């Protein structure tokens, strides 16, 4: 019951922000869509073909862009979010929840995820309408796959959020990592078997197989799905443990809440 109360408090706050700051919400959707258009038409111009010739690649861009949006939101909630809470002087209050800071943050990202699913879906529909490529939206297969895929990004977010607790000014590193996430998602999967050890990479490919290849979760190679579970658990686990470590360092040095 207490866990539910903490989760509901976070979720309600997200919906209040979404509604009250609707201009910000709309700007975010429009910005995401404009970035997508730039990438999309840029890619078409580079490939020099018509939409019919470059079809599969363009569908890949739609999928990749969707995963990137989820990943950035996941990553930003924890990393930039931690800096924001410290700046506005509420981080220490969050820390004082009897559930522990770890759970507070897990519920926080869950609340963000739920709220942002709506925004990403709006952008996804806009993208599909623009490209005319209506992808397979097998919700039952996609939800677990997206969750598993972005779990890696949450791991990175926890890691960077932990760094922010101790080192405070980590904005440059955060920005660089945002672009590294693009590489994880967009780098061609086939060029090295090493790629599937990276976060987000294998997940993006499997989501592509569902959305473009029209396969269900059960039709995907079980080995790949298991590998994705292991990969996400690894990155999430390492990120979370690092966060706990940095949190401990911050408490020891009396840095929690300082900015």
């Amino acid at each position, binding site marked *: 019951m207490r866990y539910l109360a903490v989760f509901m408090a976070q979720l309600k706050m997200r919906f209040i922000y979404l509604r009250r700051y609707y201009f910000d919400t709309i700007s975010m959707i429009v910005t995401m869509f404009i970035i997508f258009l730039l990438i999309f038409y840029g890619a078409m111009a580079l490939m020099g073909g018509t939409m019919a010739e470059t079809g599969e690649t363009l569908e890949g861009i739609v999928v990749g862009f969707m995963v990137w949006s989820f990943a950035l939101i996941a990553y930003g909630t924890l990393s930039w979010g931690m800096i924001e809470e410290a700046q506005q002087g509420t981080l220490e209050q969050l*820390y004082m929840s009897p559930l522990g800071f770890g759970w507070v943050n897990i519920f926080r990202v869950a609340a963000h995820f739920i709220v942002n699913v709506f925004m990403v879906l709006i952008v996804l529909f806009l993208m599909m309408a623009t490209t005319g490529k209506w992808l397979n939206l097998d919700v039952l297969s996609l939800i677990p796959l997206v969750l598993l895929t972005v779990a890696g990004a949450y791991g990175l977010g926890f890691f960077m959020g932990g760094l922010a607790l101790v080192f405070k000014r980590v904005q440059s590193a955060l920005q660089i990592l945002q672009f590294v996430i693009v590489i994880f998602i967009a780098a061609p999967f086939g060029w090295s078997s090493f790629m599937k050890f990276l976060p987000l990479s294998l997940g993006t490919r499997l989501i592509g197989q569902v959305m473009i290849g029209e396969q269900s979760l059960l039709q995907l190679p079980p080995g790949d799905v298991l590998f994705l579970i292991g990969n996400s658990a690894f990155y999430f686990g390492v990120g979370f443990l690092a966060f706990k470590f940095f949190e401990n360092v911050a408490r020891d040095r009396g840095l929690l809440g300082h900015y």
Partner: protein
Amino acid sequence: MEHSAHMLWSNGIQMETVLDVKDLTKRYRRRRAEPVVAVDRVSFSVHKNEVVGLLGPNGAGKTTTIKCIAGLIKPTSGEIWLDGVEAQRQPKKAMERVAALLEGNRNIYWRLTPRENLEFFAGLQGHPVRKVRGYIDELIELFDLKDKEKTSARMLSRGMQQKLALACALIRQTEVLLLDEPTLGLDVETSYELRNVLKQMAARGERTILLSSHDMHVVQDTCERVIIINNGRVVVDDRVTNLMKLFQVSAYRFELEGHLVEELEMKLRERFPLLALSSTDHRTYIDADLVDGAELYEVLDILKAGNTQVKSIGHKEPNLEEIFLAIVKGQLK
């Protein structure tokens, strides 16, 4: 590692200790330098529903002590017991028992309204909103926030924001409440208003409060007992009334007509080396700490012998600020 909170007997009344700090030490390590000792073997207890002031000059270790109790700073050594739970061993259980209003922090979400903030912090503590709705209404009433209930916190005045932050600490419904400089940065009027709310809370006796403040009016108005920390150590732990009494009985001011002749001044200084003399154009003032009535008569005898006209004799009004300064400067033991 839970144990029942231990009891103390004071003036025949059984008192339950809900906050027990034992040998709390916090040392900050530094590269290529000696560690900084922020808090050095600090020990004190606070009983159920007691309001205790934590005083000390800047850098004395007040905030570090409060943050250690709130679990925000990891102590180097020592124990903190909150209503029978040791905070280091069971941090989550300890958090069920303590809430804090921290100095220099907003402590609230500026983009939420007062009611939304209260609901959020109740939820954060694990209280479902439907169970605390009545209490939220009560707090909004108590803190006079009804008219601003639907206004974003950032649009509120500084004083209202601080009252809301205090309400958000209260909505957590913990046994112990830590208030670090709750009136800092407030204008005189709002500080007075907040002080009244604190007084009401203290009078209702619903919470155990540890309050740190530079504002002696707040402490004098709301606290039954004060703990004074200096250089990371507890130098005084006594009831406010005892401290006031200590000062009241000893401080006298004599107002004399005209100026004091040199011979008389020498006589007085010989007998009472610590007395202070000051004068205006037509008046002389003698401030002296006298142990008893006999010493008072001695001063009068010396003045009478010199034919000095005494206009008035008064007890110097004791105030906590002077007592605090005297203690911190080591003048009062």
